[in-house]
């Protein structure tokens, strides 16, 4: 058996694959955060709660209306996205002219309220959500048995990330978005309805979080705290990638998932810390993040 630093190579392959899967969640979540921060200048601390809301909406659709996983994958992001639009229209749009700190406080408060309401309604131990039958069989990769569902998560996340990147970098809508990020006043002078653009962007970012939530529902227990476990790590990913950088958040999301996966083999106690160690090093060497512009 080939060994690397005392661990069998096959085990490491397995861990790399698993790291990639966690990275898919980091990438999806940090992508939404990066878009929202890039355009709205809002540090969206409610992102974890909205991720959780996505999973709960999927659960509710199944249990109250009998709507299964595949339609929920589309419906839940739309429903939570609309909720995000309402949030932006009623609360967040009051803060654009103020310091970042206010947005952070407001969205953090929103997160606490959303999580508290869900916890009161459904308890803290979570709800079961089954893996769709088509994907419940494990795939034999030679070095490990990979559940088909996890493979699907990576593919779905990669496709959505790529699509979002293409829309922002290669379409007229995307160029308007990017222009509004640079200079909102000038774009408005050209006749673009910037406030509506901001609302829809927030809705889209939130919908991405909800999409990740639906993807996560069959793997993790659907419970009110599932988002708060992710959110701090995801913020670290955004900072490492460079605040507001779309490509940066995707690449660092997947990359850090792998770094974390390897730590879980060699020194599992540090697996929750390693991302912050990387963050500290990156901030020392490149304060704007790996893909950020200083």
């Amino acid at each position, binding site marked *: 058996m080939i060994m690397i630093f005392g661990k069998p190579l096959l085990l490491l392959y397995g861990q790399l694959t698993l790291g990639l899967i966690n990275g898919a969640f980091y990438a999806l979540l940090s992508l939404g955060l990066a878009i929202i921060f890039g355009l709205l200048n809002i540090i969206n601390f409610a992102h974890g709660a909205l991720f959780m809301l996505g999973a709960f909406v999927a659960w509710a659709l199944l249990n109250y209306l009998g709507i299964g996983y595949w339609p929920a994958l589309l419906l839940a992001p739309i429903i939570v996205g609309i909720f995000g639009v309402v949030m932006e229209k009623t609360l967040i749009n009051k803060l654009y002219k103020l310091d970042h700190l206010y947005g952070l406080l407001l969205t953090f408060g929103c997160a606490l309220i959303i999580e508290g309401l869900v916890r009161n309604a459904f*308890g803290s131990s979570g709800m079961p959500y089954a893996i769709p039958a088509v994907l419940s069989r494990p795939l034999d990769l030679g070095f490990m048995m990979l559940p088909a569902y996890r493979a699907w998560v990576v593919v779905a996340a990669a496709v959505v990330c790529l699509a979002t990147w293409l829309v922002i970098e290669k379409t007229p809508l995307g160029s308007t978005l990017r222009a509004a990020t640079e200079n909102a006043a000038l774009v408005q002078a050209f006749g673009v309805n910037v406030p509506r653009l901001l609302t829809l962007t927030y809705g889209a970012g939130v919908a991405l979080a909800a999409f990740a939530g639906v993807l996560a529902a069959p793997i993790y*227990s659907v419970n009110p*705290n599932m988002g708060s476990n992710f959110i701090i790590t995801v913020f670290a990913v955004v900072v490492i990638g460079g605040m507001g950088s779309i490509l940066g958040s995707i690449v660092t999301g997947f990359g850090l998932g792998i770094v974390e*996966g390897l730590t879980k083999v060699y020194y599992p106690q540090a697996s929750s810390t390693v991302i912050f160690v990387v963050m500290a090093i990156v901030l020392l060497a490149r304060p704007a993040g790996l893909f950020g512009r200083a």
Partner: protein
Amino acid sequence: MKINRRALLGAAATAALPVAVRPARAQANSIKIGVMNDMSGPYRDISGPTSVAAVKMAVDEFAAKGFSVDVLSADHQNKPDVGASIAGQWYDRDGVDLIIDVPTSSVALAVAGVAKQKNKLLVVSGAATSELTAGACAPSVIHYTYDTYMLAKSTGGATVKAGGDTWYFVTADYAFGKQLQSDTTGFVTAAGGKVLGSSLYPFPGTTDFSSFLVQAQASGAKVLGLCNAGADTVNSIKQAAEFGINAKMQIAAMLMFLNDVHALGLDVAKGLHLTESFYWDLNDRSRAFTKRFLPRMPNNYPNMAHAGCYSGTLHFLQAVTDMGLPAARQSGTAIAERMKAMPVNDDAFQGSIRQDGRGLFNSYLFEVKQPSESKGPWDLYKLVQTTPAAEAWRPLADGHCYYVKA
């Protein structure tokens, strides 16, 4: 109306005054019980408001004569420093006579330190660590419902006996997880089994266990020992099923509550073995208890920690009644000694409390039912084995509790 600044300050001062001059001690003819647990985090369903409801039911049913009983509750957020400061405030300022429940071993150890220092009564129901009746024991602390030793002996012992002689542990990296792993390791090796490896994962904050599960599988061990609790256990088992590990390894969830099994669903949890000292459908008395309890908390059936809060409160109130209020309020150790001298006999628990504060009750090994066997959403367990109270717990001498005379 224009508000004058001076008037405003004056009003604020008067408003603050009643708080400042309020008597430090509560009224002489009342007893205060403080339920401290996790009201908002991962252990809310296994302790939380359901424990408060259990304590209140005990108070209502006991219908104390000669004194009134107040029940307070607080959220310790699973943080030892928060728990210790609430305990200090309750005992010193609010005149609380008994703190009960206190899940999360790290918090329970911190609160036990406060109770010992102030000679106040603490009845732990929700926390697991067997240190509470060993190195960290105190004359005014009672560990009521269960502990890591009893779980390890029941679940661990039965698993090795059934042929599961090689183990891999996935363990929460804090006081409780490590204690549970070390207690279980003792039983596994004593029975001729071997521990092939373990992964200590950061707690709290770990949601993905797949990496540890794959390592466990690669170790070639027959048994996957989960030394964690609550949502972590639920996630571990769910993900083990996803990776097909439950088909190749036997899963021993060293601590699992009824509410966790309910959250998992029988499709995933079926066939698991676990240990509790109470189950609502165990016998006529437990069913009678549950029938009276459910109107208070219809969506969350009581587990052993909740039932322990009920039983512990009843036992405490009986002790206070017997010794009289003035004597009871003076010393936590005196009430604890009184509680140790009386047998426990109510609908939830029957047994006694040992000199070192260890509650001695039967422990029950359960198997989670197949979906086809279950008649309702909470019809989850079938009884596999009963360990009698005399054998279930760590022998008195092995705990080396400092105040116990040999």
